[in-house]
C-alpha cells in the first residue's frame, strides 16, 4: 500500500470505502483519471427528485401562500418565527429538501467515482446557490444536477453558461429583478406592494459575483464600471415564473428582450455589439477563458486538492493547462494530477463536515442506513448544513475555518454515537489500516489496539487526527 494510493482515495476521492484502497492501489492516478474521462455513473437515487422546471411550477402556489402570511401577520407586533416568508417556503418544502440531502449523501457514500463526485461538490461550491435564500430553497439540488454535473468533464465555459442561466442562480443573485431603465411590466400585473415593488432598474448582484467569484476573481482587474456595464449586458436574463408572473406556464430560464438594455456595451477592454441574449453569452465566453479566470480557478483547485496555501508552482501548472486548453476541464484535472506537490504531503487537508460525515459513511457501510434527518441535523450542528452555504462565496476551504473547538467537539459527539450504534459491525483497527495504512501515527495505531471495545476503537478512529484529514 503506497502513500499515493492513500492520497488518491482519501484526498482526491471521498474517503476509502471497503476494498477501495486495494482497487486504487496499483495505479492511483489512473484510477482517478478514468473517473473523469469515462462516463459518469448513473445515480438512480436522483431519478425521483424534482427538476427545476417541476419545482418552479409550484411557485405560484407558494407565492400565494406568502401573500396570506403577509396579510395574516399585518396586525402582529412580533410575528411567530415560522410565520415569515422563509418559514413558509421551508414549511412547504422541507420534505423535498430532506430528499435532496438524502440522495446527495447516498450517492456520495456509495459512488464508484468519488473523485468525479468530489469535483461536482467543488464546482457546486464554486457556483454557490444557497437555500439560505427562500426563493432558491427548492432549486439547489436541481441546480447541481442540471448545471454542474453535465459539465464536470466538459468545458468551463459551458458550465459557466449553464450555471448563470439556471433559474437557481438567477433567483439567488437577483437577476430576475435587474431590468433596463424605464422598463414597465407588460401583460402582467404590476406589483402594487411596497414590500415587493416591480423592478425598475439594474440590480448588479449577479454581474458582480460572476466577475468576483465565478470568473476573474476579486483581484482580476475589473472596475465598478465593468460591474455596472456587465449588469446591463445581462438584463433580461430571468426565470419564469418570478414574483409577478404568476400565471406563467413555461417555467425555467427565460430571456426577456423587453427587460434587456439594448445597445453595444464596453467592458474589460472589449466592445460587445451583439443583440439580445447573445451579448451576455459572448461576454461569458470571453470571461471563461480569461487568464485571470485561469489563475483564479487554478488557485482554488490547488487549495482544494493540495494544501490550504496552494504551492505557486502547482497553481502555475494548472493555470497554464487551463489557458492552453481554453478551459477544457479534463486537461485541467490532468495537470492537477501531474503536480508532484499533490502527492508529497499526506493528510494535508482537514475535512469539512460534509467530507467528514461522507467519509464515515463510506468507511462503515452499516452507517448508510442512518436516518437522513439525523445526518442533516448532525451536519447542521457541525456548521455545514447541506445546500445552505452562508454566502455566494460558498463554504470555506481551509483548516482554520473548520478546526475550532466547537466544530471538533461536534465530530467527537458524532463519533461516539456512531460507534455505539455500529461499532460491532466492523474491525476498527483493520478498517484504519486498510484506509490510512502508512500515514497512521503509532500513537493512534496503539490506541486502537488497546481500546476497551470495538465500539470504543471505532469512536477513537473516527475522531482521530488522521481521520479528520484527507
Amino acid at each position, binding site marked *: 500500500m503506497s502513500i499515493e494510493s492513500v492520497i488518491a482515495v482519501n484526498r482526491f476521492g471521498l474517503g476509502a470505502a471497503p476494498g477501495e484502497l486495494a482497487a486504487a492501489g496499483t495505479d492511483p492516478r489512473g484510477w482517478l483519471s478514468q473517473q473523469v474521462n469515462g462516463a459518469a455513473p448513473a445515480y438512480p437515487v436522483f431519478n425521483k427528485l424534482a427538476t427545476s422546471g417541476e419545482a418552479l411550477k409550484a411557485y405560484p402556489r407558494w407565492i400565494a401562500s406568502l401573500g396570506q402570511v403577509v396579510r395574516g401577520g399585518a396586525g402582529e407586533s412580533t410575528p411567530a418565527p415560522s410565520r415569515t416568508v422563509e418559514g413558509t417556503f421551508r414549511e412547504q418544502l422541507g420534505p423535498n429538501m430532506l430528499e435532496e440531502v438524502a440522495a446527495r449523501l447516498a450517492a456520495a457514500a456509495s459512488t464508484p467515482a468519488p473523485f468525479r463526485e468530489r469535483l461536482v461538490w467543488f464546482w457546486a461550491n464554486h457556483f454557490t446557490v444557497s437555500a439560505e435564500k427562500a426563493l432558491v430553497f427548492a432549486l439547489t439540488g436541481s441546480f447541481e444536477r442540471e448545471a454542474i454535473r453535465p459539465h464536470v468533464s466538459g468545458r468551463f465555459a459551458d458550465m459557466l453558461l449553464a450555471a448563470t442561466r439556471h433559474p437557481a442562480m438567477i433567483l439567488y443573485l437577483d437577476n430576475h429583478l435587474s431590468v433596463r431603465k424605464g422598463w414597465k411590466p407588460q401583460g402582467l400585473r404590476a406589483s402594487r406592494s411596497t414590500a415587493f415593488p416591480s423592478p425598475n432598474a439594474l440590480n448588479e448582484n449577479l454581474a458582480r459575483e460572476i466577475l468576483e467569484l465565478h470568473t476573474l476573481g476579486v483581484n482580476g482587474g475589473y472596475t465598478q464600471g465593468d460591474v455596472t456595464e456587465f449588469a446591463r449586458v445581462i438584463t433580461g436574463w430571468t426565470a419564469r415564473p418570478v414574483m409577478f408572473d404568476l400565471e406563467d406556464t413555461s417555467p425555467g430560464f427565460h430571456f426577456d428582450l423587453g427587460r434587456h438594455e439594448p445597445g453595444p456595451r464596453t467592458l474589460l477592454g472589449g466592445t460587445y455589439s451583439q443583440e439580445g441574449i447573445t451579448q451576455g453569452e459572448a461576454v461569458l465566453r470571453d470571461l471563461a477563458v480569461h487568464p485571470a479566470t485561469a489563475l483564479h480557478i487554478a488557485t482554488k483547485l490547488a487549495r482544494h486538492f493540495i494544501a490550504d496555501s496552494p504551492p505557486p508552482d502547482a497553481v502555475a501548472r494548472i493555470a497554464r493547462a487551463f489557458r492552453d486548453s481554453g478551459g477544457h476541464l479534463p486537461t485541467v484535472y490532468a495537470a492537477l494530477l501531474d503536480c508532484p506537490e499533490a502527492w508529497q504531503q499526506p493528510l494535508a487537508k482537514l475535512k469539512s463536515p460534509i467530507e467528514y460525515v461522507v467519509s464515515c459513511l463510506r468507511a462503515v457501510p452499516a452507517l448508510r442506513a442512518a436516518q437522513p434527518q439525523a445526518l442533516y441535523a448532525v451536519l447542521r*450542528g457541525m456548521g455545514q448544513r447541506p445546500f445552505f452555504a452562508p*454566502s455566494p462565496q460558498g463554504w470555506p476551504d481551509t483548516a482554520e475555518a473548520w478546526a475550532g473547538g466547537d466544530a471538533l467537539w461536534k465530530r467527537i459527539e458524532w463519533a461516539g454515537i456512531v460507534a455505539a450504534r455500529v461499532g460491532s459491525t466492523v474491525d476498527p483497527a483493520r478498517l484504519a489500516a486498510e484506509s490510512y495504512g502508512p500515514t497512521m501515527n503509532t500513537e493512534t495505531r496503539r490506541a486502537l489496539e488497546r481500546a476497551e471495545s470495538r465500539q470504543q476503537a471505532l469512536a477513537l478512529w473516527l475522531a482521530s487526527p488522521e481521520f479528520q484529514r484527507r
Partner: protein
Amino acid sequence: MTTRRKALRLFGGTAAFIGLPGLAFAAPTASERRLVFMFLRGGMDGLSAVPPYGDPQYAARRGALAVPSPGSAGGAFDLDGHFGLNGNLGEMHKLFAARELAVLHAIASPYRDRSHFDAQNLIENGTAKPFGREFGWLNVALGTSDFARGHASSGAQAFALGQSIPLVLRGPVQVGSWSPTKMPVPDADLLERLAALYRGDPLLGRSFAVAREAQAMMEGRDTGDGMGGQAQPVVELARAAGEVLGKPDGPRVAAIDFGGWDTHISQLGEYSQLTRNLRLLDRSVMTLKTTLGPAWRHTAVLIVTEFGRAAAPNGSGGTDHGTAGAAFVAGGAVRGGRVIADWPGLGIRALHEERDLRPTLDLRALFKAALAAQLGLREAAIETEVFPGSRAVRPLDGLFA
C-alpha cells in the same frame, strides 16, 4: 435522542471533568471589563438602520426606501434632531435614551471596493489589506502583554459563539467556541484516550483543549430551546455569550457572527429580510444585557458591518454594495446617548464615487478606543501589533466610561 441535560446527568455532570488538566477556570481577574464583537455580515444598510432624516437630500436620494421621519407612520425614533433610529430598533432606542448606546455614522474600514469577502477579511485581520494577515486583530490583542497584565493566565479569555471561530478571533491565542447541541456527551474514558491522540497534533490538540474547557463552562445549560425548527440562532448565541461573559471568572471577550444583511431586494415591509434582521439585532442586544446581569455595567458591545450600501435604491427595492454605513456600541461601559458622525451629506457630489455614503470615520478608531478602554491595551501595542500602520487613525476619544 436523549437531551443534553439528561446526558450530562447520566455521565455525572461536573464529576467527569473535575481534576482534568487544562480545565482550570481563569482565576478571578483584575479586569471586570468585557468586550463583545458582533459582526453583521452582508453589509447592513446604514441609511435604513440610522436614517439621517434631517439631511435635506435624504428623502430624494433614498426614494421609496427613505425611512419616514419621527412622528410619521412607520417613522424612525429621533436621536438628535438629525439622525433617527429605525423603528424596528425599539430596545436599542431605549438604551440610547439611557445613554448606553452610541451610534456612529458615515463610518467604514479603509477598504474602498465592494466585495463582501475582501471587506470582511480586511476588517477582521486588522491590517489595511484583504488577507493582510492570517489571523484576527482581536486575537492579536489577547496575545499582547498589556492584556496579559490585567487578566488571568489560564483558561480561554475569549469565546466565539457559533460552530466556527470568525477570523477576527482566530490566531495564536487559544479561543473557546460553543454552539448548542442536542447530542449526548461523549464518555469520559473516550475523551481521555482522545486527549492522548491529539497531544501530538498542534491544530486539533489545541481545539480539543479549548473544546473541553468550553463544554465544562457551559455544562448544565439547557440547550433545547431556540435551536429547533425555525431557529433564531443569533438571539440564542447572544444569550450564550451573555451567560459566558457574565461569569465572574469567565472569559472577557466574545464574538458573535450575524449574517444575512446583503439586502439586494425588497428591503421594505413587515416581512423583509432587513426588517427581520433589525428586529433580531434589537432582541440580541437586549438579550445580551439581560443575561449579562451586573456585568453589563462593564461591557461594551461593538456592532459593525463590512460596508454600507449604495445611497440610492437599485431597481429591485433593495440596495447594492456601498461604502460607508452605520455602527453601534452598546453597554454600560459606553458613554452613549449620542451620534458620532462627521456627516458628509447625500448630495451627488458629496457621495463617494457619486454613489455611496462617503466615509468620514474609520472603524479602526472605534476598535482602538475599545481595545484601550475594555482590554487595557496601551497605544504602543495597538499601533504596532494589533492594527499595524494605523497611527494616523486616532482612537475615538471619550466613548467609553
